[in-house]
């Protein structure tokens, strides 16, 4: 694999050439004259914040969206007005961020699904053999007979990759493939990607994580506001250069974390356990105490009980065993409204279906959790004036960009939607804030905003329980840091005593080293 910048003639003829791609949505230019070429055997990073137009570009390549102008040439043939099906036939494979798999089917069945070459008659064994072969070639380690629903996230992704490879994909588009993986899984994926490229296939790797770009890509293209703002061979690129191109401004680095001794315990959790309806233990013996003016940040790969834990703390589920007390008051089995009244705020992982009601307006969403208390409630009526007043105050304090408080939340960008959630939960000046993946799917600018708000709350004396699968974030935020693995909270240590290797191991499920970490 050549990474030599000085000899452009050594770069093989491009497999994909996109020229002058334009796409407008209303007044917004999603793509404005984008050129992109990808050669066989190369891994091209497509870097950009949310909304920079990278997904739109890839959707046009894959035939999900029609470009307004521009040409797409793939392996010498023009692709225009094509459907995803035709794109696949031409040799393009796309691994979406949200997998298109059927949980109740096995790996083989998922691979056969919608695949004409699998034939009209189901030949499971034959396809299984193909899967095993591909699996070996690329180091995917897939069991064709496994039920997809039982597979961890990283393996489901591999099923998608096998699906694309078996359908003859010569160009793979990976849409933020690392966002839900643990560090070991990420390195595994990078190895797989390298092998795929070594076989002469090409990869477009969509991401906003700089480190991975440097780890794996041969070249990188940076998008901002629908335009290409930079392209370079990786050998010639620098981290700070790419970061600045991506956000179009200097990324500030100094956090406003002030040194602050933690106060007395606020939230105390003892021996918490949760068993779900089918009898599975989701949480085991969780013990934690959260102190005034501190952030307890917890790392962990999705699906290790994080959502269960925050739901239990927030009162959306009741624990099977154990107690939760806030300032000495037992909250274990109280309702959500009582917890709210006690000063417990909660930023849930899913703003689309839980944290927000997309069809309601900004002001209604800001009042979502307090509509039944004064001042939003006056007697038997809702006080629309108070809704409006609160919304205006929150919108200016938290910088929510919208034309008016009665804009429906679903028309806002992801970052602005999260600002609404943050404004509501932090704006109510809670004693304890529970936050789960609060920056999920946000671009660096919005991520930064959320993190600053959380730190500001902690600086004011709030206690924060912060769960994230982004290790960087956990390390940056936490006064104390722990890991969730298999429904257990492991190795909570002060930030000065953190050992990244141990955290990585615990995240990957080898928690036996726990004893060495007290």
């Amino acid at each position, binding site marked *: 694999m050549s990474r030599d910048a000085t000899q452009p003639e050594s770069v093989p003829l491009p497999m994909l050439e996109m020229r002058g791609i334009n796409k407008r949505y209303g007044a917004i230019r999603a793509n404005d004259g984008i050129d992109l070429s990808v050669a066989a055997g190369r891994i091209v990073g497509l870097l950009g914040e*949310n*909304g920079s137009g990278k997904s739109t570009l890839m959707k046009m390549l894959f035939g999900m969206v029609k470009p307004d102008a521009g040409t797409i040439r793939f392996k010498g043939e023009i692709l225009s007005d094509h459907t995803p099906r035709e794109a696949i036939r031409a040799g393009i494979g796309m691994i979406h961020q949200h997998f298109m798999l059927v949980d109740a089917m096995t790996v083989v069945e998922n691979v056969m699904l919608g695949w004409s070459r699998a034939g009209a008659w189901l030949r499971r064994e034959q396809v299984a053999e193909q899967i095993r072969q591909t699996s070996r070639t690329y180091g995917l380690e897939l069991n064709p007979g496994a039920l997809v629903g039982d597979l961890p996230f990283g393996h489901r992704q591999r099923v998608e990759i096998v699906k694309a490879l078996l359908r003859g994909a010569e160009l793979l588009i990976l849409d933020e493939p690392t966002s839900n993986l643990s560090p070991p899984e990420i390195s595994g994926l990078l190895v797989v990607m390298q092998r795929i490229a070594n076989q002469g296939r090409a990869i477009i790797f969509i991401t906003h994580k700089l480190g991975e770009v440097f780890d794996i890509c041969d070249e990188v293209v940076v998008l901002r506001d629908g335009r290409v703002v930079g392209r370079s061979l990786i050998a010639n690129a620098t981290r700070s250069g790419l970061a600045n191109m991506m956000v179009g401004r200097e990324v500030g680095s100094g956090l406003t974390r002030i040194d602050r001794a933690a106060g007395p315990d606020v939230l105390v959790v003892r021996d918490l356990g949760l068993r779900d309806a089918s009898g599975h233990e989701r949480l085991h013996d969780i013990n934690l105490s959260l102190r005034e003016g501190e952030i307890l940040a917890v790392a962990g790969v999705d699906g290790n009980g994080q959502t269960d834990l925050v739901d239990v703390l927030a009162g959306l589920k009741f624990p099977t065993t154990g107690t939760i007390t806030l300032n000495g008051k037992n909250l274990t089995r109280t309702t959500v409204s009582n917890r709210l009244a006690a000063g417990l705020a909660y930023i849930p992982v899913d703003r689309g279906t839980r*944290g927000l009601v997309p069809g309601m307006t900004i002001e209604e969403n800001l009042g979502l959790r307090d509509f039944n208390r004064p001042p939003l409630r006056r007697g038997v009526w809702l006080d629309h004036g108070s809704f409006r007043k609160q919304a205006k105050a929150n919108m200016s304090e938290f910088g929510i960009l919208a*034309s008016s408080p*009665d*804009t429906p939340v679903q028309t806002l960008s992801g970052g602005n939607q999260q600002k609404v959630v943050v404004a509501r939960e932090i704006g109510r000046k809670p004693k304890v804030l529970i936050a789960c993946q609060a920056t999920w799917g946000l671009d660096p600018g919005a991520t930064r905003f959320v993190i600053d708000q959380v730190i500001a709350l902690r600086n004011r004396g709030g206690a924060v329980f912060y769960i994230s699968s982004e290790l960087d974030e956990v390390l940056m935020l936490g006064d104390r840091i722990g890991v969730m693995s298999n429904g257990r909270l492991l190795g909570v240590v002060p930030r000065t005593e953190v050992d990244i290797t141990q955290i990585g191991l615990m995240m990957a499920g080898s928690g036996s080293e726990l004893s060495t970490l007290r």
Partner: protein
Amino acid sequence: MSTSLPKEREVDRSDHIDQPGTLTGSVLPTALDRSADFWRRMALGGLAVSLSFVVAAIPIIVSGKNPLLAYWALVRGACGSVDSIAFALNKSTPYILAGVGVALCFRARVINIGAEGQIAVGGIAASWIVLSATALPGELLIPLALLGGACAGGGWAAIAAVMRLARGVHEVLGTLLLNFVGLLLVSEVLHGPMGEVGAGFPQSPLFPEQAWLPPLIPGTDLHIGIILAVLAVFVFHLVFWHTPFGFRLRLLGSTDAAAAYAGVSIVRSLFSVMLIAGALAGVAGAVEVLGVHYRLIQGFSVGFGFNAVAIALLASLNPIAVLPAGLFFGFLETGALAMQREIGVPSSLVFVIQGLTMVFVLCALGISLRRQRI
């Protein structure tokens, strides 16, 4: 929510590019005011009604009749005289009452299609009260009978609600099956304890005159039921948009997860909205027996409950829009008979028009319903 003026059309410059689902929002006015939205929907509804009449003209032409004459007869039959208007308003009354309840339920994603049965048992309860307390004066008897109807209808709905909450039986199934039970219960009591002895038809004895709903306009058949219906529409419009209870229903209408997060008790809200819808349907049944038939007769309410569902949908689940939608159904059905009598176009053509209107309205509002239903 309906007070301020429509806002300037504005395009939100914050980016939506990674979220194709929201793109339409950036092109359409983002600050769409609810009252502007309401009038836009009414206009769309009007357009849908017109279109359905145009399309329904085709079968009339095929049968060799003049659609314009047929529609003229329909209009005259519906509002050509004070009597016909009174008749149409009476016909609309139960539709509106039950329709409001159905609209509230559907808004909260509670698919209550049990108005049919709730109306039936409401009618039975009101009849039973009137026939057993004949000594009471009208001022007492009528409210008592209406209340009885409300309780019976509410109770009937509560059965389905309990089945849903306690045993997980989906309310579509529960309410649908209880409809048949409710309708059969009418026959049962008429062939048994409440039947008129010696009558050739399954009906109860005539109610005492003081139990008849008083006329709204003396000299016509129009009874005070329509006042109740209009009152219900306005009260529940206020409840839905301007009280915490209405806010809860709207939250319930989004997702259970969001409702729980906002501290809404799903059990309590689901139960209350079913109870309200059942009570309204029960009152509809009571009004029908007390104001139109003055007795309980078999099949007095057949089809009302399903019409109520259609009306709620036609009103795009907006409580206040149930009023015009219900009136539309009532007047249409009243005019149908005249059309059949005078032009020879079968009155069942009206069902075609109702169906077409539904189709057109749902098509016209489909997109906006998806976008702004909450």
